[in-house]
């Protein structure tokens, strides 16, 4: 008996992109900062396009430290939620239509967040990726790094702890 035929690629892409769009696209603050997510399989890269209103030091100029912190936190939270929901998205337990309609499951909550500023954020686009270092039943620990021109020269990194939602009855 041959294994079942794999799903057509456009069906897979449509499902994953719809889920990602529902996760990040419906959050006003993510839209306010204009943060977008680029997806390759299950790997996410966050993109923060430069804008004048992101400036925190007009003399240098440099991106506001609070913007950098927010960018890392958004990247950490979306990446954690994405990894956490992945199985349900793939199995169809979470339907893209329901997600698109705003029917999201409860998401992890930030407990604390530590940011290291490694160099000043230049007035240009920034990118970030997060790694879920540990994902437990109640708590998760996530590390995120942001860079601009060189992936090997991050301008900031952060570690966040999250409280995972209680299983729904």
């Amino acid at each position, binding site marked *: 008996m041959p294994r079942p035929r794999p799903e057509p690629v456009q069906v897979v892409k449509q499902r994953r992109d719809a889920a990602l769009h529902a996760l990040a696209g419906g*959050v006003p603050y993510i839209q306010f900062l204009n943060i977008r997510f680029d997806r390759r399989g299950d790997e996410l890269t966050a993109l923060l396009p430069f804008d004048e209103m992101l400036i*925190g*030091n*007009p003399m240098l100029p440099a991106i506001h430290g609070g913007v950098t*912190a*927010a960018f890392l936190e958004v990247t950490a939270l979306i990446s954690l939620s994405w990894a956490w929901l992945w199985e349900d998205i793939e199995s169809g337990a979470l339907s893209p239509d329901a997600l698109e309609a*705003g029917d999201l499951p409860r998401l992890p909550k930030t*407990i*604390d967040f*530590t940011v290291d500023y490694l160099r000043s954020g230049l007035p240009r686009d920034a990118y970030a990726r997060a790694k879920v270092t540990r994902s437990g039943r109640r708590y998760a620990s996530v590390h995120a790094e942001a860079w601009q021109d060189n992936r090997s020269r991050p301008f900031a990194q952060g570690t966040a702890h999250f409280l995972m939602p209680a299983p729904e009855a």
Partner: protein
Amino acid sequence: MTADKARIARQFIETIPHARALSMQITDIADGAATITMPYDARLVGDPKTGVIHGGAVSALMDTCSGAAVMSHPSAPAGTATIDLRIDYMRAATPGQPITARAECYHITRSVAFVRASAWDDDADRPVAAATGAFTVEGG
């Protein structure tokens, strides 16, 4: 001199594009401590179901307020930048209410300023968030 420095720090904060984008207002700044208020704004919501402000916007407020506290210190640094900042999120801010942060630069050396801060909404007895940070001290 201190009053003059406070005026410069106030002007500096008010020329920060991102602080303006979030409509931050300095209500008090002197001797290494600052208080800044940020009005509720639907664009800053992190959870559309509840209308709660995103933690990232609270981080931006805490970072700005901490930097302002350093700038207003009597030892008069010419500039400052965040080295690190840790934020504890104790509870969700109540939707519709402004968030106020107060930061205090409790120790400063020739190179580093140490700051703690807290933030609250209309219920000042139950902080929304607390922060501690280290900041650079640029030569005057």
